[in-house]
């Protein structure tokens, strides 16, 4: 019984620490010292490194979505809606979630394992001995890197997905190019753009905070490092999906989408 009580206390303490870390990480954005070189390093690692992976996945998702819609809508005579559905699905939903999931898998796991290794190797303790706040030095640059790169990659991925959809709609499904682009222009309205632009910031925040927390709380050698990395990816995936639903509901309400 005592063991269970302690586990529950540890779990609550973990949640508190995660909340505290995410708050401190944000606070680091507006407080000195500011480690700008670390931010650029993080942007390079997380953004440039994920660029081609996200573009490749986005291209094929856009093409597959367009292909599925062509097959389904052609029979009903609604082929002219391919562009509209591709646009809405990519901008509002698939683009942000896809970019975030790829980012969590590639960058989040990297962050957790890097910080975990630093924790186990006493590098984080060494920072503290030198009077350097590990949150400002390690978490804030990663958080800022994510906050900049996830939205940027999402927008780029959206554009490539739409281009992939265009290729299938026009060259495979033989839809008019003008109709496709006019549908895309229609869906590029304020509500859809805001809806697709808010989500990546929230996802970036979740990925950075969860991954950094899992890394910094690593215990127990190589097995602990493996556990921390896995937990970072799994927790990020779950939180992205859950947050996506909650955000969609909130944005529907705020932006006045009718159901």
């Amino acid at each position, binding site marked *: 019984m005592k063991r269970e009580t*302690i586990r529950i206390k540890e779990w609550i303490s973990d949640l508190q620490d995660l909340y505290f870390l995410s708050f401190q990480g944000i606070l680091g954005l507006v407080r000195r010292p500011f480690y700008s070189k670390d931010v650029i*390093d993080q942007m390079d690692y997380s953004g440039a490194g994920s660029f081609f992976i996200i573009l490749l996945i986005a291209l094929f998702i856009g093409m597959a979505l367009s292909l599925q819609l062509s097959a389904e809508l052609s029979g009903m005579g609604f082929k002219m809606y391919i562009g509209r559905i591709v646009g809405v699905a990519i901008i509002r939903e698939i683009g942000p979630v896809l970019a975030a999931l790829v980012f969590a898998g590639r960058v989040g796991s990297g962050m957790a394992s890097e910080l975990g290794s630093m924790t186990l190797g006493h590098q984080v303790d*060494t920072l503290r001995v*030198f*009077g350097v706040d590990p949150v400002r030095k390690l978490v804030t640059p990663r958080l800022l890197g994510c906050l900049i790169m996830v939205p940027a990659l999402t927008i780029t991925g959206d554009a490539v997905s739409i281009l992939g959809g265009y290729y299938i709609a026009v060259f495979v499904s033989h839809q008019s190019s003008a109709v496709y682009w006019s549908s895309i222009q229609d869906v590029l309205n304020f509500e859809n753009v805001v809806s697709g632009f808010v989500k990546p910031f929230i996802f970036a925040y979740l990925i950075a905070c969860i991954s950094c927390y899992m890394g910094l709380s690593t*215990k127990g050698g190589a097995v602990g490092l493996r556990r921390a990395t896995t937990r970072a990816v799994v927790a990020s995936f779950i939180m992205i999906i859950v947050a996506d639903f909650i955000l969609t509901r909130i944005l529907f309400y705020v932006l006045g989408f009718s159901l």
Partner: protein
Amino acid sequence: MIVFDRVSFSYGIQEVLRDLSFSIRFNQRVAILGGSGDGKTTLLKLIVGLLRPDSGRIVIDGKDITDKKEDELREIRTKFSIVFQEGALFDSLNVKENVAFGLREYTKMTEEEIDQKVRELLGEVGLEHAIELMPEELSGGMLRRVAIMRSLAAFDPKMFLYDEATTGLDPVNADIICKLILDLTRGGKGFIIVTHKVFDALRLAERFMFLKNGSIIFDGNKDQLMQSSVPEIQVFLKELKLPLATPSRQGEG
């Protein structure tokens, strides 16, 4: 002076240190011996406030640090120079940047002055040639030497804390590190070294403490240690009495 007054510490449900009480002067040369998982590294971390005890008091240089906040501990930490196991150099920085780290954080030295100081420090341990190398390119002995110089660069510590400074090193490198540790005590500064290598401990220290299951089961000088009848210490001392291997006859093996 470092004072531990009935200090206990646990990692979750695992109790690591139990009701520990002792005092160590800054100029003493102390070896803390014990097996793996007996709380030796935890003890060092408690001294510099990297961990907070569950109960009891820790007093450093007359100041109770038990409940101090991170910012308040900064001054306490400058009294110590701590070298963690395997050096704990920052992987992403080269040797020069590692040694310069504290200088950049703590001083307002220009880049030229930092460069000069780093070269000077590395020169003292014969590592000027390694200034541009990354940590993964260094041997275990070089890692320890760089770490010791890094810990010295920015502060003028009152005491050195070494976590398994010679563990995993070959006898030649262990000897270099031991000499360096002794050299650094010449100004009357003491150290605490936690180790399970009794040979190195006997060479370096004047006071020996033995940790077992979170408690100190021995605290005394070299003669007392050598004559101790504590079974755990006897096991450690066996390392000193290992018979030399009989050389094989020519043509064999």
